[in-house]
């Protein structure tokens, strides 16, 4: 069985939740991250808690195991026992993300959703992102409104932003993560090399390219300078068991293919 591009993306989203244990896995940026969270639970993260998108927590058999209306979600997120995958309209090299509007906020060219919960999510718990169309206008040098905060903003905020983590960014072309870049990174010169040390602020790095995608393609489709390691691995395809669960149990109608066409 060869996995389609959409299926590779679902598996890459599932990987974002690896190690999370018994927390709420939230996916609001499309079907692929939602399938990713459910695939993670069905395979290597059995304790993940997942909402039905309304007010119920539902287990793997779709039995209601809890009640989580919006008010409880907004309190839960401040407690930190949550990891969400959001869909940014724009994201920059440090992971600052915008979902509110395009153009100047004061008089936008295009009004979108509004900031929603992105500011609170990103300072309270782990966040990942799903981008179904990797393009320079999405992965852009500067976002129009910082809704979800990136590593540079978190570094400036210091202790108040200590719960900030952007785990990974999954796109239709690649998986990206964040690593300290610049002269402070691993220079062994006695600098702290971590967040808060200027040059050591994590930037987006190419973690893997999906099967059939070249490094150049990803660099070309990214609007800022991406950190590209010397050796870029290929994103692992889901193993046969994961693929069976995805195809037969989680998404038998194949709706995932519409979100990542051309796979």
């Amino acid at each position: 069985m060869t996995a389609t591009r959409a299926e590779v993306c679902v598996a890459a989203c599932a990987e974002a939740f690896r190690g999370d244990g018994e927390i709420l896995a939230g996916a609001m940026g499309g079907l692929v991250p939602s399938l990713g969270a459910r695939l993670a639970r069905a395979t290597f993260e059995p304790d993940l808690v997942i909402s039905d998108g309304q007010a119920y927590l539902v287990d793997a058999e779709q039995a209601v195991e809890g009640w989580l209306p919006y008010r409880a979600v907004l309190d839960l997120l401040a407690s930190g026992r949550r990891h969400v995958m959001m869909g940014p309209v724009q994201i920059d090299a440090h992971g600052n993300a915008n979902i509110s509007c395009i153009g100047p906020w004061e008089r936008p060219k295009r009004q979108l959703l509004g900031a929603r919960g992105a500011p609170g999510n990103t300072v309270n718990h782990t966040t990942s992102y799903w981008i179904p169309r990797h393009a320079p206008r999405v992965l852009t040098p500067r976002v129009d409104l910082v809704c979800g905060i990136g590593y540079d903003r978190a570094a400036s905020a210091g202790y108040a932003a200590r719960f900030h983590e952007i785990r990974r960014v999954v796109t239709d072309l690649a998986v990206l993560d964040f690593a300290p870049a610049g002269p402070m990174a691993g220079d062994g010169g006695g600098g702290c090399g971590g967040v808060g040390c200027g040059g050591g602020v994590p930037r987006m790095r190419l973690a893997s390219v999906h099967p059939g995608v070249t490094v150049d393609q990803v660099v070309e489709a990214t609007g800022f300078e991406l950190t590209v390691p010397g050796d870029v691995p290929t994103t692992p395809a889901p193993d046969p068991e994961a693929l069976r669960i995805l195809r037969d149990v989680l998404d038998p109608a194949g709706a995932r293919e519409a979100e990542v066409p051309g796979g």
Partner: protein
Amino acid sequence: MADKTMTADEVVARLEDGMTVGIGGWGLRRKPMALVRAVLRSSLKDLTVVSYGGPDVGLLCASGQARRVVHGFVSLDDHPLEPHFRAARESGTVEAVELDEGMFLAGLRAAALRLPFMPVRAGIGSDILRINPSLRTVADPYGSGDEVVAAKPLRLDAALVHTNLADAAGNAALTGPDQFFDDLFCQAADRAYVSTERIVPTGELLKQAGCVHALVIHRYMTHGVVEAPGGAHFTECRPDYGRDLEYLAAYVRDPQPVETFLASREAEPR
């Protein structure tokens, strides 16, 4: 117990130009559309609308009655973008105060509890502080080195909410899967007006609500009760009815002027 029943137009007669009006529900869910329609029919103006926004916000922008909108988002769920709100923002005809959803909740809580602010981590490091320059952060007075945003109270002159059941005295039940923040809207407001799918005798409230946890709006919070079956249409009012997807599709495909919206039979309660 006083009889607080009135018509939607009688609610609107108690509102004034320039008021700050909170509207319950969330996006396309349990919006008090019958009360919103009554506002749209009126000459009220210069309103500040405070809402987890949906078509309530959009229509009050389209009518020009909302001068300012305080929101965390304005969305129609299945259709993420509200066409009237978009048009108003892009043409600069409405002033926006954009908050994080959790900061919005903190503001409602501060208002309900009569506190000067409510600490919340949401907003730290984000542009929400840039576009709301009057927002302040506060250092932990106990010296941990932590710093949080002091969310401003969202004090309301009036709140409008839609409920599944109510009695004539102004007790109301929210029987759907999510009660949203409607009880907080009522407590954050000087005066709260409740529309409801049906008014029942007080002795029937618990029985018909099916669960005591539904009885979250109490008569000491409310000042008027309007019986409005279908009063959330075209938004959903579970478990009584779902969203009207056909109506929604047309609303998004071909946004109509407010007069046309008010004239359409589909917009009326069923």
